């Protein structure tokens, strides 16, 4: 018996399972108030998925407003927050769109498919802006490397990211791999995608033009992930493992590849008025969002949806998260041409509705009205929570517990041993086991890829114009001080882009936090957003879009607050990029000021298992000045190689450059050896120049401290003059061995 609108009007007392679908009783009442009656079961399904945390951002909206309120003035932003992804002008009529999203909970449940469909989802977001996807990146976070559950999830997640991305033909140009106990049980899988298009190709997700057709195309609809969005991303896992196990979404990258080609063809042929991808909440989301953004009305014949599983009910069809589906708004006169393009690529397409001017989204099932709602109430006017937040009671004690008091290595032998220990520690060790499973070459435009500071791809083969992207976040810094930690994440990403010679332009973010029902977590979130918004304003680069993932906790242990920040920059000609490899000669210089800052450092974490104190000072003006030296230096050809200084300090930066170059160096330690080697002060970079005077002058001009450290020798040793030396072989051995050994 179908629950129609008419039946709903006649049976107001019917008990409905709103709580099982994730709705609170006041939310359920609000739906009844909006409709003036009880919702049908289909309407209840739609509201429940669209009003879930993952779709409606109900706990984060009040804070995320700051990204718009504090938006820095910029001409580069062509499409801002609110659309599927932000779009930035990179010059010469080219536009680039990029965004990072999370797929954390599904990846814990089913690592391969969770990660794979995470990549699929973000790629479709980029595609729906009218762009050809050109690269992907994957910031990943796991529990301790030696934990059994890490060995369960890590290989599957990496295989899923690679399996999906490689099959789509998108180069993986960067990402992160971070290990921390708080991520055990809550691995973080964030997926970023970059797309490029000409300005005139930008498309928005709106349904305009009464009488235009709504076409659903791509894979057939099945029972994938029903309730995934509402159930998985809106609840914490209970101790002892995932108790909620709904149908997991399964991806088909081959179908997505066909979808990309078919979509780009119909877009370029001018056959599409509006376009939307189907992600979380599937058809519920696509129809309500398209309708909201257009004339305000849409009618859908749900029974026309092509099904993989003929037993699905209308509610299930509305909630299904079957992958590889898109929705296009097509003028009737263009329909045949649209269908022909889809047929060429063997992509199924069917008209499921039309744009109306009723101001309502109406859905029929075999002639019976099962949904009649104002679409904005579904898609945009979801609940807005003002969750209570308060600085945690333990924050003061945590900040007072400075890592400076921890016993530190003093003798050259102890320093040497600490260096080797850190170089081989999970967070600093080589990630090649992971990154060699990703295709970095496909499309032939990858200029820089991991382990370089940012991933860089050429956008225009004639002029060499390109973009660089980096993603960064030090969750430990964010735990010590979320406001500063978020700014440090922004600073690091900004710095990484500048290090490769690109000019930072725009920001995306993936905010991974614990439960918003915990005032401690909510405080961390509010502080991080405030820090990020303030930071973006100060640096003059806007947030173009992003994602929030809450409920990353098991029981009462939340993950480290992890606001992953992605910065995108542009470079006029990729030939002028600055790589990490320093060749066989040149002067090594350190840009920026070093302080004794060890709290939250890799040393404190790995050697002492300690987290306490205040994070390194963040000075965005200093970052800006440093960036100017790096970018202008690259343009002038004065800098041959560069690497930013971050986790593990200057020691790690030098070791990574030496290993990348397979060429040694001789440097003189400046001041206190331990501080020089392992402090994690921000706003610093190591550069190598053939004419150090030019770099020194540039640094002086911008007020950036510049110190000559030594020179590249081309030998097989890295020598810290007067202290110790260590061979490249030794370094390579410890650096390369750790992760493969743990996963064998």
């Amino acid at each position, binding site marked *: 018996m179908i629950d129609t609108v008419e039946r709903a009007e006649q049976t107001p007392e019917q008990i409905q399972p709103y709580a099982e679908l994730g709705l609170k009783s006041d939310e359920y009442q609000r739906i009844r108030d909006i409709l003036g009656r009880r919702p049908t079961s289909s309407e209840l399904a739609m509201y429940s998925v669209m009003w879930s945390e993952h779709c409606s951002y109900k706990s984060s909206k009040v804070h995320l407003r700051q990204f718009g309120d504090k938006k820095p003035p910029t001409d580069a932003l062509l499409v801002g927050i609110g659309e599927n992804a932000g779009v930035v002008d990179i010059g010469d009529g080219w536009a680039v769109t990029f965004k990072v999203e999370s797929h954390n909970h599904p990846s814990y449940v089913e690592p391969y498919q969770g990660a794979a469909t995470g990549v699929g989802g973000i790629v479709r977001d980029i595609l729906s802006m009218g762009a050809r996807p050109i690269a992907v990146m994957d910031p990943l976070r796991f529990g301790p490397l030696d934990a059994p559950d890490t060995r369960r999830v890590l290989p599957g997640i990496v295989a899923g990211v690679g399996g999906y991305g490689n099959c789509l033909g998108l180069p993986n140009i960067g990402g992160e791999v971070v290990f921390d106990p708080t991520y055990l049980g809550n691995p973080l899988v964030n997926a970023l995608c970059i797309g490029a298009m000409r300005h005139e190709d930008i498309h928005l997700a709106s349904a305009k033009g009464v009488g235009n057709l709504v076409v659903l195309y791509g894979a057939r609809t099945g029972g994938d992930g029903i309730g995934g969005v509402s159930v998985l991303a809106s609840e914490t896992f209970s101790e002892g493992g995932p108790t909620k196990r709904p149908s997991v979404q399964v991806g088909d990258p081959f179908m997505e590849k066909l979808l990309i080609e078919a979509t780009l063809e119909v877009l370029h042929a001018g056959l599409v008025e509006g376009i939307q991808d189907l992600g979380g909440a599937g058809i519920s989301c696509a129809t309500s969002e398209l309708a909201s953004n257009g004339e305000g009305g849409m009618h859908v014949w749900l029974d026309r949806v092509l099904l993989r599983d003929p037993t699905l009910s209308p509610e299930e069809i509305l909630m299904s998260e079957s992958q590889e589906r898109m929705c296009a708004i097509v003028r009737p006169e263009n329909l045949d041409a649209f269908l022909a393009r889809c047929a060429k690529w063997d992509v199924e397409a069917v008209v499921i509705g039309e744009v109306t001017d009723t101001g309502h989204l109406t859905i029929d099932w075999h002639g019976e009205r099962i949904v009649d709602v104002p679409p904005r109430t579904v898609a945009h006017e979801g609940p807005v929570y003002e969750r209570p937040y308060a600085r945690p009671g333990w924050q003061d004690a945590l900040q007072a517990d400075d890592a400076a008091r921890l016993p530190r290595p003093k003798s050259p032998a102890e320093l040497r041993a600490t260096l080797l220990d850190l170089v081989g520690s999970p967070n600093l060790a080589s990630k090649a086991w992971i990154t*060699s*499973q*990703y295709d970095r070459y496909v499309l032939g435009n990858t*200029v820089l890829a991991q382990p370089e500071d940012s991933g860089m791809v*050429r956008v225009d083969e004639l002029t060499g114009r390109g973009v660089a992207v980096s993603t960064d976040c030090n969750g430990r810094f964010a735990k010590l001080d979320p406001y500063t930690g978020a700014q440090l994440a922004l600073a690091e990403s900004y710095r990484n882009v500048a290090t490769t010679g690109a000019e930072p332009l725009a920001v995306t973010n993936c905010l991974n936090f614990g439960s918003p029902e915990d005032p401690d977590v909510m405080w961390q979130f509010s502080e991080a957003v405030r820090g990020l918004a303030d930071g973006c304003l100060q640096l003059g680069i806007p947030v173009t879009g992003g994602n929030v993932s809450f409920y990353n906790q098991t029981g009462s242990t939340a993950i480290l607050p992890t606001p992953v920040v992605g910065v995108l920059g542009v470079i006029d000609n990729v030939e002028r990029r600055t790589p990490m490899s320093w060749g066989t000669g040149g002067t090594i210089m350190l840009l920026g000021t070093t302080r004794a800052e060890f709290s939250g450092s890799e040393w404190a974490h790995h050697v002492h298992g300690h987290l306490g104190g205040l994070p390194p000072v963040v000075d965005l003006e200093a970052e800006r000045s440093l960036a100017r030296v790096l970018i202008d230096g690259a343009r002038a050809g004065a800098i041959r190689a560069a690497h930013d200084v971050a986790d593990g300090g200057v020691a790690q930066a030098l070791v990574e450059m030496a290993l990348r170059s397979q060429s040694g160096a001789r440097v003189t330690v400046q001041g206190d050896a331990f501080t020089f080697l392992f402090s994690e002060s921000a706003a610093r970079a190591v550069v190598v120049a053939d004419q150090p005077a030019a770099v020194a002058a540039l640094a002086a001009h911008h007020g950036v401290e510049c110190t000559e450290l030594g020179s590249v020798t081309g030998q097989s040793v890295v020598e810290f003059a007067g202290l110790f030396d260590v061979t490249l072989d030794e370094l390579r051995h410890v650096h390369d061995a750790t992760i493969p050994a743990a996963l064998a």
Partner: protein
Amino acid sequence: MRIGVVTFPGSLDDRDAARAVRIAGGESVALWHGDDDIKNVDAVILPGGFSYGDYLRCGAIARFAPVMTTIIERAHAGMPVLGICNGFQILCESHLLPGALIRNDHQHFICRDQTLRIEDVNSAWTSSYSTGQEIVVPLKNGEGGFVADDATLDMLEDNGRVIARYVGLNPNGSRRDIAGIRNERGNVVGLMPHPEHAVEALTGPTTDGLGFFASVLTSLAGSR
């Protein structure tokens, strides 16, 4: 010289192959899998990728595409054909080359800069190299293990039909470290690694891959 590059559903490195042809000085012609007309091209490249998602077996479905009927015919008549990675898989499935490609022995997809030794230059696609020359080109595959029975392997070796071998590291478990083979006539070559990704210093580890594309242009010019 006009070199056709076939696009199957799921082909990925077709654009890169086309670029390599252009950089080598040829004209690349896009060929569609569903069309048996190969537009009078002088040679054909079957590019890398995941044609048909690698469903059933890599290359198993692509091999029956209309364009392949014509290509197989012309290959038997002497037209140069280069199969790269997925293309190599298609050539084996089509029986234009012996053997088969199976899953990497270590079970992972691997992308690395691979050293190869060119062992035979009597093919349309390797003639511009010298025997024993070592080159570095990217390798990226999950199903790159070349297998054949001992009799076939011996036949290939004895007749100089192994055109390239892995040096330093066998990245996928291929028997006898075989990275590429040719047919008897030397016009059909299958290669697992990707020379089309080693044609520009900016984006590749070397420009060593250009030789494959330069070879065919020279071979074709010579045969005019």
